[in-house]
């Protein structure tokens, strides 16, 4: 508890109370920094997670290599990479580690899974989604994406969507009744695939239902109605695949 006591006061000026009971509340209201490029990509599941967990954050977005280079220098951290999370003096990289950290910080270890079996299943789904999301990134940056699109969907995307759809049958969230960290990554995959092709999920009603349930979570809904979400491109404007304008 002592180290919390000597941290800097929060940047926001919302709470002026100095009562001991408010100190902890203010610590939880401290702003963390999530830094990434100015696009959705790998940071978006983390932004949604921060919103869901009610953790105040500064959404630090780099537009150029020079901006990142300057920040990297100022950060003075041995393993700088994007995305990173800064929480007080602590800096953390690797998106999955950041997700874990936030779940612990918010005391939401249920997000890992409420049973050992759920934790194993979530880890399995995360492996599948990590590959899927990487394939999406490769497609978006493929100079021949327009001509390759039907083949990519047939050979790479649809087989995975079908298996995920089967796995999702009868479930509220991808692991079951309880929302899981891996739901945030799944939603981003489904959202992006649907932006590539509006009909991409037509054949996968279980995934549509899960996406809708996720979108209707109040914190997610509010975030999606915000300007900072609406103005953010999914990937770089330079990418060969042209998404519809945000």
């Amino acid at each position, binding site marked *: 508890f002592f180290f919390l006591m000597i941290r800097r006061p929060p940047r926001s000026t919302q709470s002026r109370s100095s009562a001991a009971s408010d100190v902890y509340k203010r610590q939880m209201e401290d702003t963390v920094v999530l830094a990434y490029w100015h696009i959705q990509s790998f940071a978006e599941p983390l932004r949604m997670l921060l919103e869901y967990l009610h953790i105040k954050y500064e959404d630090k977005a780099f537009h150029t290599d020079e901006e990142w280079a300057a920040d990297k220098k100022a950060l003075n951290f041995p*393993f700088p990479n994007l995305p990173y999370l800064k929480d007080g003096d602590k800096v953390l990289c*690797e998106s999955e*580690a950041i997700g874990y950290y936030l779940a*612990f910080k918010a005391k939401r270890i249920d997000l890992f899974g409420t049973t050992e079996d759920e934790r*194993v299943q979530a*880890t*399995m789904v995360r*492996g*599948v989604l990590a590959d899927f999301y990487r394939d999406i990134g490769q497609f978006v940056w493929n100079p021949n994406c327009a001509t390759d699109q039907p083949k990519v969907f047939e050979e790479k995307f649809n087989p995975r969507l079908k298996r995920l759809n089967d796995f999702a049958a009868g479930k509220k969230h991808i692991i079951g009744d309880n929302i899981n960290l891996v739901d945030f990554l799944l939603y981003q995959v489904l959202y992006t695939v649907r932006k590539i092709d509006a009909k991409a999920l037509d054949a996968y009603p279980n995934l549509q239902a899960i996406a809708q349930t996720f979108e209707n979570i109040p914190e997610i809904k509010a975030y999606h109605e915000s300007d900072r979400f609406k103005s953010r491109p999914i990937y770089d404007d330079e990418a060969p695949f042209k998404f519809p304008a945000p």
Partner: protein
Amino acid sequence: MAEASITLGYWGIQGLAEPIVKLLEYLGLKYQVKAYTSPEEWAADKATLNTPFPNLPYLKVGDKTLTESEAIAYFLVFHANRTDLFGANNDERVQATAVRGVVSDVTRDFVAFIMDASKHAEQDKYFEEKIHPRLARLNAFAAGKKHIIGDNLNLVDFALFHALYILGKMDSKVLDNYPNLQNIINNFNAIPQINAYHASDAFKNKPLLPPTAAYKFRD
């Protein structure tokens, strides 16, 4: 009560499943190996495998089949009641997750390199640009530690060891500038179950790469 039988399905190589094999050995679990020697043989089994995302490696335990290496590792940790291997506290768990991300990226990069013959002539340049920066960071992170997370062995030590092992086969000098990583490797090798497994025929006779890989090791 009889212990549920464990079968690990994979190609008959070390490949990407070796961390799981070492984990099985370390945990002292009895297991069988189903080694596929052709894509056709695997395709036939894949069609009937009762699991949501059929792939290699898979783990069959009793009547359940599990895929995705990390999920298999998690399962084995729970099965053997060794949740300490996730990390001794939340901070270690987070650190282990971060290291795992770095090790996954390095592994993916050198696997892509091995499978792309057009790049092989440029190995030194490739190592300089992609591999050494990450090894330098891992080496700094490993300073003063017995295992990569600290005093306690972690799941991520298994993946890290295997990645460094393959890199060492690709370039015997790759760890010359990274004494902390050499130390970590030595400590991992010294674990009795690991040491015994490395001395076994099962390990020594197992090729590292698939027969289709065009990569030629230097030594």
